[in-house]
């Protein structure tokens, strides 16, 4: 039972990472595209990109922390 719990946490951590990867990947793709299209706005775009990346990452980190808690609580 514990093993399944730990395995679930591992799978969950992977899924959270996939979600964040897709999110930040799309964000980066369109930011780079925007910078290429409008290089003079690079500073603003970069600022917005970092801010938004932080929010996306935040959602993934909630997932990762829950997985970590599951492992620490279930592993003992």
């Amino acid at each position, binding site marked *: 039972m514990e093993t399944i719990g730990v395995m679930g946490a591992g799978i969950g951590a992977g899924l959270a990472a996939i979600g964040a990867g897709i999110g930040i990947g799309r964000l980066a793709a369109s930011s780079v595209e925007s910078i290429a299209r409008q290089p003079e706005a690079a500073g603003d775009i970069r*600022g917005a990109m970092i801010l938004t990346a932080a929010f996306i*990452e935040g959602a993934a980190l*909630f997932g990762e922390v829950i997985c970590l808690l599951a492992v620490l609580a279930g592993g003992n």
Partner: protein
Amino acid sequence: MPLRNILIITAILFSGGTILAQHDAHPQQDHDTHTPDAVHQDDGAHSPADTAAHAAGAHETHHEPEAYNASASILHHILDTHDWEITEIPAGKDAAGKQLYRPISIPLPWFFYSSRDGFQVVGSTAALPEKGYVAVHDQLYALKAGATVHADAHGAVHLSEEELATIKDADVTLVDLSITRTSFQMLLIGILLVILFTGVARAYARRGSAAPKGFQSFMEPIILFIRDEVARPYLHNKADAFLPYLLTLFFFIWFCNILGLTPLNSNITGNISVTAALAILTFILTQVNASKDHWIHIFNTPGVPWWLKFGIPLMPVVEFIGLFTKPFALAIRLFANITAGHFMVLGLVSLIFIMGKNGESLIGGLAIAPLSVLFTLVIFCLETIVAIIQPFIFTLLTAVFIGMAMESHDHSHDHGHDHASDKHHH
């Protein structure tokens, strides 16, 4: 082509290390592996019989090397402790020929409130039993009258749950307020910041608008960056009032992160209590400086059908929870980023100990070492960037949250403009 060669070499190194380690692992599989008493990195997973065995001095029978418990070792580095352990040095061998290690550590004082004796100050963990207390796995317990505990040569006490239950006085309420490793290092960082920045401030007072010099010229672009890219775009005309706090926040987190990357056994911003405290400060600043419109937006959100506000109060509930999730995310983000970095570095270093069977298999350790060191180096480069990105994001989001709460929605022109650009961003 070169990339392919690198991949092949990596694969060979990996499989080679694994095979060697497996080879070494075979003879030990049916033996009882055992945690030594001198290495005080205790895994907390002692069976009572095991501990009783050491208490009786019966460990001569265990000649096998203990299994290296990577997760216990990593957690030992990540978690807060009551002494600042820098490293361990070899300290001879015991009767059974087992290598002993002596920790090089700075003992930090215990300071706690006990319902039995009032406020207590005890110099170090080793001195606790004299006063009628004991610390097991950094957790403080009161001893019953007349109970004695035996510490090993280095003052570490090993007790199982059962042994502890017989000697601890459960009626005594303890509130541990000690200066732990993390809080001690935080104080050091604080002192360092005061010294560095009073120097920089004095340089500005003395030199005026002349070109900056020395350390001042290192700090000036960073300070200006925070002012121009973080404070002013989000806090507008209130920027200068919040700038001292934002700068303190940025440099404090940054310096803590950098200290965490040194081999001084430091994990300040990877401690959830520290990041939570910083996030609570942001929360308080946000709510204290909130405009009337901020509260109107929460409890009477404009542009939302009335039945979502008063019929089914969904929007106010969501908005109200949002007040707390923002600082919560702030705390978790910093904590998780720094802890993840430490986990990765410690995990990669642990590979050497796992493959090397904790010193028994030299070949296994050597096989994995180059790969482990290379990966650790790569992670370190990444962590150096994370160490400055994270304080930037923390500071930026603090400014954004305060700016959002302070925003007043009744004047028309630049407000409309702000919203347009906000929508554009998201």
